């Protein structure tokens, strides 16, 4: 088996283990955020309020709608890893292709 294939299996295992990372926080992170400012200092800074919602991520806080906390987190882990693999594979291929005339590097 190629070494990258073995490492890939390691990633799959990690993907299923991510709910361990939820034990520490317990609640969703979204509960902190802007409300927490009202609690802490009594107001929400104006600029912070204006720019904090400039982008609405589709799976904010690793939450996939209509699924439970743990399933959400596992789905996010696999979806996220797939996207990272895709983007780095693409970047890698583009950079490596330009390197074909120097196959041994440097």
């Amino acid at each position, binding site marked *: 088996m190629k*070494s*990258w294939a073995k*490492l890939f299996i*390691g*990633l799959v295992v*990690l*993907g299923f283990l*991510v709910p*361990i*990372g939820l034990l*520490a*926080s*317990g*609640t969703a992170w979204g*509960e902190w955020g802007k*409300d927490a*400012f*009202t*609690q*802490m*200092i*009594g*107001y929400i*800074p*104006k*600029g*912070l*309020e*204006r*720019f*904090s*919602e*400039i*982008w609405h*991520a*589709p*799976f*904010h*806080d*690793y939450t996939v709608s209509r699924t439970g906390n743990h399933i959400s*987190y596992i789905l*996010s*882990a696999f979806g*996220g*890893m797939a*996207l*990272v*693999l895709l*983007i*780095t*594979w693409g970047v*890698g*291929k583009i*950079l*490596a292709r330009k*390197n074909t005339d*120097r*196959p*041994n*590097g440097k």
Partner: protein
Amino acid sequence: MKLSISKGHPVGEKVSECPCKIKAKNRLYNSSHEGFRGAPESPWLFYSLLPDTLQGLSEGNTLVRRCRLTEIYPPLEGPVSAGLQGGYSEDHFIRPENELQEILYMHIPDGYLSPQTCAVMYAAVVPFWYTAARKLKGALTSKTVPLLSIFSAFSFVIMMFNAPVPGGTTAHATGAVLMAIILGPWAAIIGVSSALFIQALFFGDGGILAFGANAFNIAVVIPLVGYWTYRLIARSAPMKSSRHWMGAAVGGYVGINAAALLAAVEFGLQPLLFHTANGTPLYCPYNLSQAIPAMMFAHLTVAGLAEAIVTAGVLVFLKKSMPEVLTGIAKEARI
């Protein structure tokens, strides 16, 4: 949760109802009240913020909120309860000593940094992306592209493993130093930036405007500082030398803490540089003396340790079970 409460002047105000819904350890929150209790079985003490709380914004190194005791739940029995429930109320100054950490994270969300700061951070990170792309162009081969992808995905997933930090916040490793040691710091810059980009775009973990700042802190500073530290300790020792795993551990610890300090400085400069005419902060409201201790506490303890363990642990594991990743492939991949 450490709380020091000092008495202010008594004010007569009726006890209000408190339909709190959110439970968080020893705290209860809703929009206007905040409940605390000293021990798990003791009653909740509810405080509401006073409208002029802004004036008590900061005192020395701690945030100070002016609060009023408004309710005790469940109601106390006997004469004590009668006194408290019958309109007993007092102003209190509450100093939340650890709470700042819950708001300041390494992944900076949008709104915490001014657009100007965000622009500066984008300008700072672009030369590193450019240099990294040029270096990779000269070194990446079809054999090493899968490794670049796998370690980038590892960085993404390891950041989902939150570990608890005393005081209620969480911290996590980044895998950035590990990637820098195995594939070289320039590959790590591209790989970790990619992971951060996906986190920001799809999962709202870190801002889009703040992506430049997050990429600079997490994807540039951690790999470069971590890698240099590792090289300093490992030098040219043979692969079986313990210098390698020790260097990896120290590199991980130093790298993530360097980035935390930088993020804290970015947070802490906001109220100094960007405020309204009367001095009210527009973005992150915590100054350097508040942001630095809050960030560094979580990172000098838990996050630094997590990064050290992940970096050294995976390095040792690979050395034992898949040495070809470190020797054969890494030799031509390391840039």
